[in-house]
């Protein structure tokens, strides 16, 4: 069966730009590690000319949707987007239960939070993970989020309201992971923003739909993203929206439009206002508005720019901002992808591929600093932490330290 969605023609038209130069193939981290995936050029602009409603090609499911192909393409072909759309057609035929479950991030978070210790324990027990693998198809060693006993919103609500700061008002978008699993990152982001003199608003907000989208559930994802836009717009007109959830900002900025064809004024409005927190700090720097009297931090840490951040085409603002801290050496990984690609690396049949994709990164991280690594998105941090054994935090954590809001030893144990 075929799916009707407006975005298809947009991405499909972009295949006209493909000159078969193979640059996407040379950069694809999945094709580099397995012959099961014929590569982005084949699956994208090449196969697309042969598609017509029917789902006849299945090797595209090996595409992790990391988006490096689109990013690298010198000609402007929406390769990853074409792949995602073709997958949506494929999944419309036979959607595994697992893909439906792991794409419901909010539900999973809400379910796990009140019972966090129990949930964490359950997910830590190997026999249970074997059962989960066999029944649901989530690999027994795949990184699973560590549920926090307190959700971000319950922390936020219990917090005394801050007065309006001298720098105006911004809106904070926490994302599902930032709401339930990566609560620390959300807290630190808000504390840094408030330290800089902003008043932060946090409207009640739902999921951006990214996981649903990456699993081909476009209808649900489109509804989710528009609902989120309404939530964020409710906080106020024209306010900058700041997020420490790098992948969710990507969904708002371009993916919902380019992959699913969501063409809605609300999305356009939010998409142009949303900033990744490190991007926002770098914009302040460029405008000469960032206080930069940082103390010296003598430390060398690896930094991995996640695919979904790179695909926003803004360079690596975390690297730029942390470069302002004296003594701090941040080593860019220079590796393509950690392998997790949202939920890809969780899947039983993809786990080995994802581990192979990430291996050069894990090696680099361990070799650079075995005690601390930096990365902007949640699932990538889980993947790096789990697979390299190196605790991995959002770069805002070091900014938090640099502004004196926390201490380095909270990130790195003494003596390490």
């Amino acid at each position, binding site marked *: 069966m075929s799916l*009707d969605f407006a975005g298809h023609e947009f991405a499909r*038209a972009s295949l006209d730009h493909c000159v*078969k130069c193979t640059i996407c193939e040379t950069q694809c981290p999945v094709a580099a590690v397995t012959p099961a995936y014929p590569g982005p050029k084949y699956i994208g602009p090449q196969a697309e000319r042969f598609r017509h409603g029917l789902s006849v090609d299945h090797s595209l499911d090996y595409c992790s949707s990391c988006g490096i192909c689109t990013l690298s393409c010198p000609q402007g072909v929406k390769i990853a987007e074409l792949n995602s759309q073709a997958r949506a057609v494929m999944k419309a035929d036979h959607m595994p239960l697992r893909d439906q479950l792991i794409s419901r991030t909010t539900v999973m978070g809400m379910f796990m939070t009140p019972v966090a210790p129990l949930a964490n324990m359950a997910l830590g027990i190997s026999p249970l993970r074997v059962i989960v693998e066999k029944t649901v198809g989530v690999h027994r060693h795949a990184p699973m989020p560590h549920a926090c006993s307190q959700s971000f919103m319950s922390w936020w609500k219990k917090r005394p309201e801050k007065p309006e700061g001298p720098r105006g008002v911004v809106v904070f978008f926490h994302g599902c992971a930032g709401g339930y699993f990566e609560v620390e990152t959300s807290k630190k982001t808000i504390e840094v923003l408030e330290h800089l003199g902003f008043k932060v608003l946090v409207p009640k907000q739902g999921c951006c739909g990214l996981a649903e989208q990456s699993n081909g559930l476009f209808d649900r994802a489109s509804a989710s993203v528009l609902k989120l836009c309404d939530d964020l717009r409710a906080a106020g007109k024209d306010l900058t929206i700041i997020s420490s959830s790098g992948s969710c900002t990507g969904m708002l900025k371009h993916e919902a439009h380019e992959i699913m064809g969501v063409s809605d004024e609300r999305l356009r409005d939010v998409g142009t206002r949303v900033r990744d927190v490190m991007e926002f700090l770098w914009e302040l720097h460029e405008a000469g508005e960032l206080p930069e009297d940082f103390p010296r931090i003598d430390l060398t840490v690896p930094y991995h720019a996640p695919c979904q951040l790179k695909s926003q085409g803004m360079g690596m603002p975390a690297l730029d901002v942390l470069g302002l801290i004296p003594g701090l050496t941040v080593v860019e990984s220079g590796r393509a992808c950690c392998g997790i690609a949202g939920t890809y690396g969780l899947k039983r049949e993809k786990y080995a591929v994802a581990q192979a994709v990430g291996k050069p990164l894990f090696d680099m991280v361990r070799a650079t600093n075995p005690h601390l690594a930096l990365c902007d998105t949640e699932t990538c941090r889980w993947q790096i932490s789990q697979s390299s054994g190196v605790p991995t935090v959002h770069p805002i954590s070091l900014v938090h330290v640099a502004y004196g809001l926390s201490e380095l030893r909270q990130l790195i144990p003494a003596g390490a």
Partner: protein
Amino acid sequence: MRELSTDVVVVGGGATGVGAARDAAMRGYSVVLVERADLGQGTTGRFHGLLHSGGRYVVSDPGSATECAAENAIVGRINADAVERTGGYFVTGPDDDPGFADKFLAGAATAGVPAKEIDVAEALRCEPRLNPGIRRAIEVQDGTVDGWQLVWGVARSAIGHGAKVLTYHRVTDIVVRNGAVEAVVCHDAKTGEDVRIACSFVINAGGPWSAQIARLAGCEDVEVIPGRGIMVAMSHRLVNRVINRCIYPADGDILVPVHTVSIIGTTDVRAEDPDHLEIPRKEVQQMLDAGEVLVPGFRTSRALHAWAGARPLVKDSRVSASDTRHMSRGMSVLDHAERDNLKGLLTITGGKLTTYRLMAEHIIDRMCEQLGDTRPCTTADEPVPGSESGHNYLVTHRLKDREAERAPGSGDVPTDPIICECELMTRSMFLDLFEQQPDAGFDDLRRQLRLGMGPCQGGFCALRATGLACDAGHADATAATNALRRFLTNRWIGLWPILYGDQVRQTALDYWILQGTLDVEHLPETEEVAS
């Protein structure tokens, strides 16, 4: 000189010629078909790929419309693997007369051509690229047909029924004795040998060249006007159904999805010589303007290739010789016994690919009549080799096949590298056909395999094909390099008239690879580089 003997010689390896050869062979005659180049290299391969529903003619030529509707069903069955049942729309453009659609519907009802008006919204839902400003839409049973696939299928069927097919045999003489045809003399371009084929009947199916052939038998006044039309292939399917303008036939009134491309056609200009058909930039512009009416943004879509074909239109005293569009599109059989007192020669021209089988039936009926036979035509009943299953072509086929080779559980890893990646042609497809047709040039293989017909136009695959030909022992380095040079030279004929936009990027990269990196232009010179 080699000597052959047969009942019937068919001159011309287009759809009409192979159709006639098959028909005669199925009626039990011994048949030799001679073609000066490769099968389907003339008009049959140089059209827009439409399998008419008859819709185009319901107002202007109801007789043709009825024929088309009937043959559409037959050809879709007997040449199933060459036909895609795309369906089609006739749409009224924003500035077109909406009244024509009423005439169309009335004409269709009279002619027996299935046609149904549908909501414009429904048409736009099914074809999202269509101009949202269209005012009416009528659904018809247009299909698309690969002329080369069709011709080869029909030729294989003819061969299966005992016919002999000689390609690269140019007719140099038709020997007449005592007012009757006695033999046909050909020159075999591949061996340089002359061949004399003794026969009792000759069918001239030379299309736009049929006047030249008739002249070899001394029949001077056959007037066949080559009506030149250009077509432009766009890089992917902008639409998945045939889209016709619902107006009186005009230039650029049709957009046809064939294989992985969509083809806009066509113009109609009298040409002097069917061997030299230009592709004027002015006409390309006309096609782009016409495409824009059907699909907004057409002009900025990527054009891949253009070509010109010559319709063989018989001069009709009712219209002036320069107005080819309004000449009869129906087939014409010229009986040279009647006209020229020459027995044993019939010329057939006109018509269209959709009715190739019917044309063949008519002319072989006429031949039987003159030979005093009554053998019935059975060509509508039997599918050609490759079409026995009755499954029609789908654009997804090659992708599905390649995926099947990759699929887990298919036994092993794929062992067949993809040589032409744009059109998903594998090494074994290429080598198997080369094995069957060792004399074939790359263009001959291309027509059957689509080698080099996708977006890169040979930039990546031409080198691979050349190397494989050499590696498999079909050619030494000299011959293979000549074949490569000829292939590139020939691709350019259809490329340079449409170079703009994205295809310029591709051409620049192709030049970079072939001349910049490989330095093909400084390979040792060889004496012949014929086109």
